[in-house]
């Protein structure tokens, strides 16, 4: 569960986000678990994998995380629908990188997948990849809108070929977000891509993962299908906002032997 915390992209993607709200989230990212619990577990230096925000919140996030080593991830390219003008989507990436985002979560054009226009998907992804420069790019497939696992697999492969560092299930805004079947499909595509090319691509399930038990299930799946190498934050992330709270309670249960309450843990 501590491993899960280090793989969380602690996320806020709301219309009412403010600098203050984001600073609070960043503080939580830097100190995700109560110090006494960590001490009892005999570990230190646990932080979340990243903080994930909209473009306008990059600046306060970067400022708040200075010195923590925690990167800021920004959703981009007309998130969540990805239907704004193409040149603006490219420009948005550039702006976000300039503002200090080290990771960019782009959304693909679902219509390219649904119409089987793989060349267009490849070209789009490649353009996004180039616009990101040194920043890591995560390709959000919005799997809940792709219609079939076959499409999920194909889109995964095309995005990896076009240079995605991560492939990610969802924006969190679709009606169906990360699921285990979708995860299995995507990580098997990652495994195959590695077998064939030697490139390791990361995986990020997002949306709907809110229980510690779910997190363990995902980690087990990753371990069994991809191996331990993928159980590191550079290759695996959870996109989640409420997962951390449940993990904190379970960690306290582990330490005390008694079930915990949410209010005993500082909120983010």
């Amino acid at each position: 569960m501590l491993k899960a915390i280090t793989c969380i992209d602690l996320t806020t993607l709301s219309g009412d986000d403010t600098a203050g709200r984001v600073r609070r989230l960043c503080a939580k990212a830097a100190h995700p678990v109560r110090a006494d619990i960590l001490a009892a577990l005999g570990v230190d230096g646990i932080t979340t994998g990243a903080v994930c925000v909209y473009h306008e919140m990059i600046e306060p996030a970067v400022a708040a995380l200075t010195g923590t080593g925690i990167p800021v991830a920004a959703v981009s390219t007309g998130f969540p629908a990805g239907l704004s003008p193409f040149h603006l989507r490219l420009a948005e990436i550039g702006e976000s990188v300039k503002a200090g985002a080290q990771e960019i979560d782009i959304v693909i054009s679902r219509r390219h997948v649904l119409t089987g226009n793989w060349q267009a998907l490849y070209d789009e992804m490649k353009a996004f990849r180039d616009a990101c420069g040194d920043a890591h790019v995560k390709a959000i497939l919005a799997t809940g809108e792709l219609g079939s696992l076959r499409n999920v697999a194909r889109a995964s492969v095309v995005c990896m070929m076009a240079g995605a560092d991560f492939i990610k299930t969802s924006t969190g805004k679709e009606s169906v977000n990360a699921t285990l079947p979708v995860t299995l499909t995507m990580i098997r595509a990652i495994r195959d891509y590695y077998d064939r090319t030697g490139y390791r691509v990361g995986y990020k399930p997002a949306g709907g993962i809110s229980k510690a038990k779910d997190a363990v299930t995902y980690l087990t799946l990753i371990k069994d299908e991809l191996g331990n190498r993928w159980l590191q934050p550079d290759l695996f992330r959870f996109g989640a906002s409420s997962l951390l709270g449940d993990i904190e309670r379970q960690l306290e249960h582990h330490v005390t032997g008694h079930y915990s309450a949410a209010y005993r843990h500082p909120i983010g």
Partner: protein
Amino acid sequence: MTVKDIFETMDYGAAPENAAEAMAWLDANTRKFGLFIDGAMTAPGNGFDSMNPATATTLASVTQATADDVDRAVAAARKAQGKWAALSGHARAKSLYALARLVQKHARLFAVLETLDNGKPIRESRDIDIPLVARHFYYHAGMAQLQDSELPDREALGVCGQIIPWNFPLLMLAWKVAPAIAMGNTVVLKPAEYTPLTALLFAQICTEAGLPKGVVNIVTGDGTVGEAIVNHEDIDKIAFTGSTEVGRIIRRATAGTGKALTLELGGKSPYVVFDDADIDSAVEGLVDAIWFNQGQVCCAGSRLIVQEGIADRFYAKLRSRMAGLRIGDPLDKAIDIGALVDPTQLAAITRMVDAGAHEGEVFRAPCPLPDQGCYYPPTLITGLSPSSILMQEEIFGPVLVATTFRTPAEAVQLANNTRYGLAASVWSENVNLALDVAPKLVAGVVWVNGTNMFDAAAGFGGLRESGFGREGGWEGLAAYTKPRVKAQALKPIAPVAAPKDAKVDTLDRTAKLFIGGKQKRPDGGYSQPVWSPKGALLGHVGIASRKDIRNAVEAAHAAKGWSKTTGHLRAQILYYIAENLTARADEFAHRINEMTGKRNGAREVEASVSRLFSYAAWADKYDGAVKPVPMRGVALAMNEPVGVIGAFCPDDVPLLGLVSLVAPAIAMGNRVIAVASDPYPLAATDFYQVLETSDVPGGVVNILTGPHAGLADPMAGHLDVDAVWSHSGADISTLVERAAAGNLKRTWVNHARGRDWFSPDAEGRSVLAQATEVKTIWVPYGE
């Protein structure tokens, strides 16, 4: 290990299931068990220990039943049976429902006990075995409820002797007991020597459920107890699941006794992977196919047949998956593979693999094995050919053998190149290919893009030397019921003896055998005269020999296209036969009257025409079914032809008897070798002229003549005949059933009981069931 260590290594830890409750149950029974007879446990007697194969420790001592014990159990079952069957279906349904509920209430105790006794991973006993047990009792509670309305023409068999194996101890008990008692039978069940404990816990559940005394009796012991059950004179039916070798012994032992028999035996099931398969899923499927229950599964997908172009990549992925398998303490909830059931099994697997492995390339999963207990590493042997012994013989362990194919036709050929026919898997993302191949595989169960899927609603059972009979579904009830037909004593009819004053026509008339659509002289060159009771020589018929049977079987196999024709076409041809028979009705009536010396001929011809119409009607209406199995997908129950059937026709009604056997057989797509009425053969030899004018392809119906007794053994012993029916006036049932043990073909014999062939009972579903095999094809779907 500290939290920090685990955080660094991310290794799995142990997740042991607590065995305290199961141990407490054993202790509460003082770790000594008697037998469950007439509703009560007997005092523990001399016996043997039941061991935990994972730890080589003794769990409890169990009683070795004596012949007297078996007698008492059978007597208790006999005494209880009448009343039990006389209860309403609803009353029996309530008992089965209570059993289902109680299995669920004690689910974890059953699961842990099963794992302790058998060595299978708790993950399997908890998530697969025990839930399927409960499901089986629920399902058959429903069957009891519906029996009165849905099966009014069938009734219980009586007392059933049931012998079950050690690989799925409680599940096999459920498969045997649930349908038997649902239909009003009572049972004497022998669990396997290695794994008797869950059956004994089940005995207690029977008491808790208020099951009447004697309905279920459980006797423990070794093979001698099984033998006592098989040979017991007051048992009506034997159901056996186990090895082909023992199945064959049981077939011989019960031959001619009139005991009904179903056998679920070994297998060497093919696992066919096409190049357009979802390879990752197919690799994962193999884990469930051959490493499920340590490979100790009769229907294990143990023969990998993979398309050549993807074979190397497939093997590489498979080896990498095997490296991740976890083998160890079966009570660990995160273990993939547990312990083999017994050291003898470990030794047998080791011996077999050591003897045959040099023919291929051996890969043993590099997973660490526990220091003690019966463990064998998951093993893959590639590069084998069909002639390799490990490709032919059942290993019954975690050992997968593999070969490659080039085309779909070759895949089918390789898959079917086996003495067995239990199950098969087909992997392809192409629905056309998968659904084309599935019906071509010789197996009782075919899984498309899956493996080892089971459900009470879906029939399970084999072909060839994997046995006969189905368990599960409506088709499974046939194994525990019989038609309510009034049997009569069989009256043997001797051929009419040569008269003192023979009346002989000047023109000689010699009927020949009818083989492959041609009239053939008997190979042996012998004939016999047919006399009328009035002393007229009606003609000669050939005396067929084993060579003629050989030729007829060859011809029948050559006519395999018949099995692929549509029901509509077969119906048309049956109507056409009826039409042509009608045109010659007077001639046939006259012929029958001449031979029998009676005046029943016209009535018999009319009944024969009607029967032909009945089976023409059935040809395209004996529907299969879609089973509501609990998954996203369908399980199709397809009625497939049995294949080549040898049929000894009744003596008393020479035309109607022939038609009553041949018509249902060919209506369902079988090819037949019919042996004509012995005393009155000329109706059958006249009939081949009708066949010749009715567009029946050569080889579909072959007609032999001659004394039945001499042909019973070569016919039933022929290894390329799929079923033998005998309604002969001569009592050849024993001969047929004994010889049938050779390739374990299905038999349908009269056991020296006659029947009224004019009766509507003599046609319809119960006959069609004999002419078909139910193949269950599982098709999970989803994108």
